[in-house]
């Protein structure tokens, strides 16, 4: 299958399609990614997120923000505040900042309350004080969905979008997807089979720095999570799968299943793993 490779939002992307993606569509994808980055990147001085972090006040986000913040609202409720877009400041304090300083500055504090700190009316966010939003828990998955929509709109209905391990699959025959071992990328702990839908992974193994710091923060304490070391979520959209992969670090799958229809795999620091009964695929034991 022809493949289109490109770099976007700090990671490598690959799109498999039966027919090649022409230059016009490639330009559309590139433009879509650029607009997303312009809005949501907290690493860019000119993004809407940075504006909100600098001045606070009222900011109108693009139409696509509605679904993203809706998902965060649900995850926030289901995880008792552990998953929140307001972990941004805590991430910065821990050193996961624009310069990747990886140096702790300031003290670790719980994230501000998403429900009280930010008033949201659709896509319009209002804050009294500057707040730093981080959509890292679901943003990449969402962009995968948006690129998938572009493909559908342009007549390409069969594809696999692979944003470095977060995938959206739309194929006739199920794709077999390896679940990468969190300790060793040459190994897999299992395989999932998907023909329609998304699988997203989250791990505490990779983005890691001093003193047990890694990028998955518990919004209730501002501290990184510890016990679960890797998660996978399979859902209809990459937005939901990506968000749930993060939420699985904090919250029992059964509780998340009250709001979402999804399959899952978790791996623990003990080397054990568990999975949803309905998972299409297998874990190796």
């Amino acid at each position, binding site marked *: 299958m022809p493949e289109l490779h490109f770099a976007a939002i700090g990671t490598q992307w690959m799109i498999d399609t039966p027919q090649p993606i022409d230059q016009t569509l490639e330009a559309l994808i590139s433009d879509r990614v650029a607009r997303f980055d312009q809005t949501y990147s907290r690493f860019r001085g000119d993004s809407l997120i940075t504006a909100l972090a600098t001045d606070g006040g009222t900011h109108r986000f693009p139409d696509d923000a509605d679904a993203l913040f809706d998902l965060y609202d649900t995850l926030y409720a289901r995880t008792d505040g552990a998953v929140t877009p307001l972990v941004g400041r805590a991430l910065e304090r821990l050193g996961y900042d624009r310069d990747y300083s990886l140096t702790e500055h300031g003290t670790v504090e719980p994230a501000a309350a998403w429900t009280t700190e930010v008033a949201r009316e659709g896509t319009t966010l209002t804050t009294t004080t500057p707040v730093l939003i981080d959509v890292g828990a679901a943003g990449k998955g969402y962009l995968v969905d948006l690129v998938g929509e572009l493909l559908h709109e342009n007549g390409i209905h069969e594809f696999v979008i692979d944003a470095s*391990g977060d995938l959206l699959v739309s194929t006739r025959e199920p794709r077999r997807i390896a679940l990468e071992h969190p300790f060793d990328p040459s190994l897999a702990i299992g395989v999932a089979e998907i023909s329609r839908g998304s699988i997203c992974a989250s791990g505490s193994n990779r983005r890691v720095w001093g003193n047990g710091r*890694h990028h998955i923060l518990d919004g209730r304490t501002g501290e990184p999570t510890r*016990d679960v070391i890797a998660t996978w979520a399979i859902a209809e959209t990459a937005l939901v799968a990506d968000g749930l992969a993060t939420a699985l670090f904090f919250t029992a799958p059964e509780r998340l299943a009250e709001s979402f229809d999804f399959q899952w795999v978790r791996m623990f620091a003990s080397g054990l793993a568990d999975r949803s009964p309905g998972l299409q695929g297998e*874990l190796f034991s």
Partner: protein
Amino acid sequence: MRLQNKITLSALAGASLIGSLAGCTTTASTPTSDTSSAPSTGSSTGTASKTYKDGTYTEDGTYQSPAGTGRITVKLTLASGVVTAVNVNGHATDPTAKTYQADFDSGIAGKVVGKKIDSLNVTNVSGSSLTSAGFDEAIKAIEASASA
């Protein structure tokens, strides 16, 4: 400190035991505790010319979970400077972990083993190792400064 270097190496080699253990407080590896002196840019592109002795290394580590402190034993095998095998054993003492151990017997949760991705008939890989190019650059810079 001996193992620390080897674990740091594994991060460079594309494996990432550094992460799994730095998520813990461990007697064997606190490589990233040095990062307070890390450069804030990736300007340092040191070539990690250090060589590591092949062999199998075993270290204990501890981690904190809501149920208390857990202990794991990590065994890793190095060949030609690359981590070729990783084995992690949990020593469950707390009730939650014991539950998982018990579940394993009934087939609900169990110890998983890694299989070579090359040997599997798969088209894609889902994982977090490739997540952030920028972050990997930073890790490399830290590795360079840590081994300097």
